[in-house]
């Protein structure tokens, strides 16, 4: 511990702490703008500058560490003036469209301007109107609003390691651009939306599809149904100032019904379906490899739920195409089932059914527009709204979300298990798959406390586990004594790590779960801002709590699925499944510029 004084208060602080963190502990707020804990600490926006006795210039508190005897002033005239000037400068290069901006009342710049009492901007507006980039299905870029904090660049280059966004040109002409291209569609972008999730202003947002959904609901000829991804229930509350990690499944269901959807369903239903299909696929591959000694079987198998990961794989590692599970993502499985099986059940034409997805994800907007996602005969999923969009949608309808009662989702596509809930978390798909696969092979429940596979839970970037299979059922005897090695990576940078290790023969796995976003879907690019590690943990805990409170916790126990297979699909990997629930991937390496 070292002693410092801050604004004449004596405080003790741990060595190695930044002034910013020390101030936070001392209940002193220092404004930040480019800073994002654990993501980037570049010290470049200069909002967080403080005065340190004996130092000529003001120092950025986010990167300056405290030292013994340091005297810090966070609120002197110099500091206040500097911050005001920085804000005035930023505002002079910002379009004053706050009222019509997507980030109105949710904008860090707007908030700071209010907090620092900016009553006028003495500098004349030098903001140049730059063209809006709406070239991709998921992401909209408005470079005129960009304040060049570079959070997006850091997540794109260092966390996701996709490297689409980077600063271009220099001086006042600097812009954040997709490499040398002008439009995102001309560059390789996996649409993960992590850039949109960290943008402090309205410069990068998801494409707003709320009006299209209103239109569908308003159309009396359409039967509009909605599915909600597992991660929404643990995050939507944050749009209404509820504590991170508040479970709002019941209120969400009520709100969706109040919005006018004709059926309120759950992507979880399709997540359970995915486990049956994918689990069977894995076991089939293992059998071919071990019993038939078929060298053409691609192992390890990778999961395929995360559309950003699929985009990444197609562009950067197309050689892995045979290794990736052919299963569609739960969202697309839901769409295909809804427009065939469900349409039949309710006696509607598939053309008249509109499937709306609520997703924590911007890449899902891209995925539902992929040409091959039309196996029902029409577009399987029509519109995707992010969690943030749903929050706005509910506000537009004047629903008092916090105080409405809980309701249950509709049958049959709203019935699901706890195994589907945990799809939201990194490690969750793997855990759900193991719960089912282990039981298929041994006839016994996964032998872990509360069915949790602890080594693959949590926020470590790459996690692994080994499971020795003993006491197999007769038909799975070939797996007797086999140790199944699995791995989990979240964030594409970590995915890259794992792939490179496999490529160089350093690691050998049977099954690998990849989720595009840090923390998994609970940290998706469409989730309420700002997703920090603390918030990730809160959402993850909430999801596990949801899972543990369920009547059914293993996908194969889902009663609605049993009916689906009996009445419609036949068996996992059967002909109908193959047609509706599985897909193929494309080598897009040539499109890389």
């Amino acid at each position, binding site marked *: 511990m070292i002693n410092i004084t801050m604004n004449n208060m004596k405080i003790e602080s741990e060595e190695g702490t930044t002034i910013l963190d020390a101030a936070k502990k001392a209940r002193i707020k220092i404004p930040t*703008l480019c800073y994002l804990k654990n993501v980037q600490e*570049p*010290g*470049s*926006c*200069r909002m967080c*500058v403080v005065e340190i006795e004996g130092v000529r*210039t*003001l120092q950025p508190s986010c*990167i300056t560490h405290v030292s013994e005897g340091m005297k810090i002033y966070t609120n002197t005239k*110099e500091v206040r*003036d*500097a911050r005001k*000037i*920085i804000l005035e*400068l*930023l505002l*002079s*290069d910002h379009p004053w469209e706050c009222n019509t901006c997507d980030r109105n009342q949710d904008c860090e710049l707007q908030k700071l301007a209010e907090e620092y009492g900016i009553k006028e901007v*003495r*500098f*004349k507006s*030098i903001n140049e109107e730059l063209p809006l980039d709406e070239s991709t299905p998921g992401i909209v870029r408005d470079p005129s609003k960009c*304040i*060049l904090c*570079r959070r997006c660049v850091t997540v794109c280059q260092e966390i996701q390691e996709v490297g689409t966004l*980077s*600063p271009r*040109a*220099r*001086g*006042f*002409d*600097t812009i954040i651009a997709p490499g040398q291209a002008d439009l995102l569609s001309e560059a390789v972008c996996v649409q993960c939306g992590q850039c949109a999730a960290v943008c402090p202003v309205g410069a990068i947002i998801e494409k707003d599809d709320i009006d299209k959904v209103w239109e569908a609901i308003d159309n009396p000829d359409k039967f509009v149904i909605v599915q909600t991804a597992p991660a929404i229930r643990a995050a939507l509350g944050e749009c209404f100032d509820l504590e991170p990690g508040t479970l709002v499944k019941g209120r969400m269901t009520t709100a969706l019904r109040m919005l006018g959807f004709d059926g309120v369903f759950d992507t979880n239903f399709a997540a359970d379906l995915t486990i049956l299909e994918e689990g069977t696929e894995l076991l089939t591959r293992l059998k071919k490899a071990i019993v038939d000694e078929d060298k053409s079987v691609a192992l390890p198998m990778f999961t395929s739920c995360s559309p950003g990961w699929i985009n990444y794989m197609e562009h950067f590692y197309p050689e892995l195409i045979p290794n990736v599970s052919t299963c569609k993502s739960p969202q697309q499985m839901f769409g295909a089932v809804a427009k065939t099986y469900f349409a039949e059940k309710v006696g509607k034409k598939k053309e008249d059914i509109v499937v709306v997805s609520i997703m924590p994800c911007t890449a899902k907007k891209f995925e539902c527009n992929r040409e091959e996602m039309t196996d029902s005969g029409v577009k399987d999923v029509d519109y995707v709204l992010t969690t943030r969009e749903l929050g706005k949608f509910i506000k537009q309808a004047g629903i008092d979300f916090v105080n409405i009662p809980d309701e249950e989702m509709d049958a049959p596509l709203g019935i699901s298990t706890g195994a589907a809930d945990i799809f939201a978390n990194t490690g969750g798909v793997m855990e759900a798959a193991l719960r089912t696969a282990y039981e298929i092979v041994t006839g016994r429940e996964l032998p872990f406390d509360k069915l949790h596979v602890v080594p693959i839970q949590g926020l470590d970037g790459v996690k692994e586990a080994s499971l020795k299979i003993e006491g197999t059922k007769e038909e799975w005897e070939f797996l007797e004594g086999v140790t199944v090695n699995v791995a989990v990576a979240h964030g594409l940078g970590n995915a890259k790590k794992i792939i490179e290790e496999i490529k160089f023969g350093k690691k050998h796995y049977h099954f690998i779960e990849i989720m595009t976003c840090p923390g998994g879907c609970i940290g998706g690019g469409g989730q309420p801002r700002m997703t920090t590690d603390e918030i990730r943990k809160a959402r993850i805990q909430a999801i596990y709590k949801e899972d543990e409170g369920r009547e059914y916790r293993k996908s194969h126990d889902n009663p609605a699925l049993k009916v689906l297979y009996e009445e419609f699909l036949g068996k996992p990997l059967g002909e109908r499944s193959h047609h509706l629930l599985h897909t193929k991937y494309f080598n897009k390496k040539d499109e890389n510029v």
Partner: protein
Amino acid sequence: MSRRSIDQILEGKPYKKLLSSEKLQQSEIDLVNTDPKKTQYYGRIVLDNCGRINPEEIEEYIGTGGYQALGMALKEKKPEDIIKIVKDSGLKGRGGAGFPTGLKWSFAAQEKESPKYVICNADEGEPGTFKDRLIMEGDPHKILEGMAICAYAIGANIGYIYIRGEYQLSIQRLEKAIKEAEKLGLLGKNIFDTDFDFEVKIKIGAGSYVCGEETALLNSMEGFRGEPRLKPPFPAKSGFLSKPTNLNNVETLANIPPIILNGAEWFRKFGTEDSPGTKVYSILGHINRPGLIEVPMGITLREIIYDYAGGMSSGEFKMAQIGGTAGGILPIELLDVPLDYLSLQIEGHNLGSGAILIMNETVPVVDFLECCMKFFVHESCGRCSICRIGTKQMYESFKYLREKEANYDELKKIEELAEALKLVAFCPLGQSVASPVLSALKYFRAELSKEIDSNEDYETITREMSDIVFDYS
């Protein structure tokens, strides 16, 4: 290298032939011919050979005693002795910041990690500065020798010269010099039959001003965007490829061989107590003899203009900008301030890169500042918000003033912005934007205020009124 040639160099004897009697291949830039009747010839340290020897012939450099210092250093001195000599000499970095060179070397020398790097910063980008160019064109081996001595002192075996791409002749001559020195065994393995190895490579910059800042230079060398890095860690601890790195300006390194050869005491005979040695200036503007001069630290601006530069070419002296676009403006009152690090610091200025731009009364301060700011708008790296937008607003303000569109608040606003830049900007570039502005406000406020006063005419008032009418129409 043969025994004979090593001895020859160590004894200061010509290696192959004496200085060429033919017309020497001169650099493209002429040295200012000082008038011996008027000025005292102080002797040169850095530019001693420039124009006297053929820079493309290594023998001629050796003929003047070249590489003798390196030989001496390797044969007779320990690395710590070298650092002590450089420290004792009081040499300060000639790139602009004026940091004590010996001290800088000692930081890199302390580091245990290897490899270490020596980098010669030849990205001379400060407008009006072309001293390093002449040194490189006129005496390239002196830089190589200085780098080798530095490498020996800090424990490095690899050196880079980061040079701006526009300096084609410098690049050619340095490349040739490296080849010739390698051929003679003065670079490469086992130099002077010792176990000291040193190789030098050239990296060519792409023309960004900020890459002259040492950490931006490192980023550029590593293939990243040329933007300053956070300090600490300083390059001495974590520089090129995160290894200990010592960066010096061309002129600084060119001072090294003479210092090692003649000793710290000899060097201290030049210049002032605080700032020993000489300084190479590029002088330009409204003077009769623009060009390069090397003079002792501490001579005055008046001496430079009237003794060396042959006086004003037209009109009366109004102001001089010292140290390139990032430098402060000196008015007539400061003509007699000694030009050295300490004296200028007392006046709130920096010696900077060594450019002296002399202007007569025909140059309006506001036009001049607008011009300076235009440069910074383009050359700010775009990383920190206050520099990126602040330079642009500063430029707009001066344009506004020049067009007589500004109101009374403009100067106050400019001053606040300049103070904030000085206090808050991320790197020396942003901080130095304030230098010309604040010095202009200090010495030429009356003139700048006039740009506003003329606003009070009838036209402006009617224009303002018509604006209001327009707003409501």
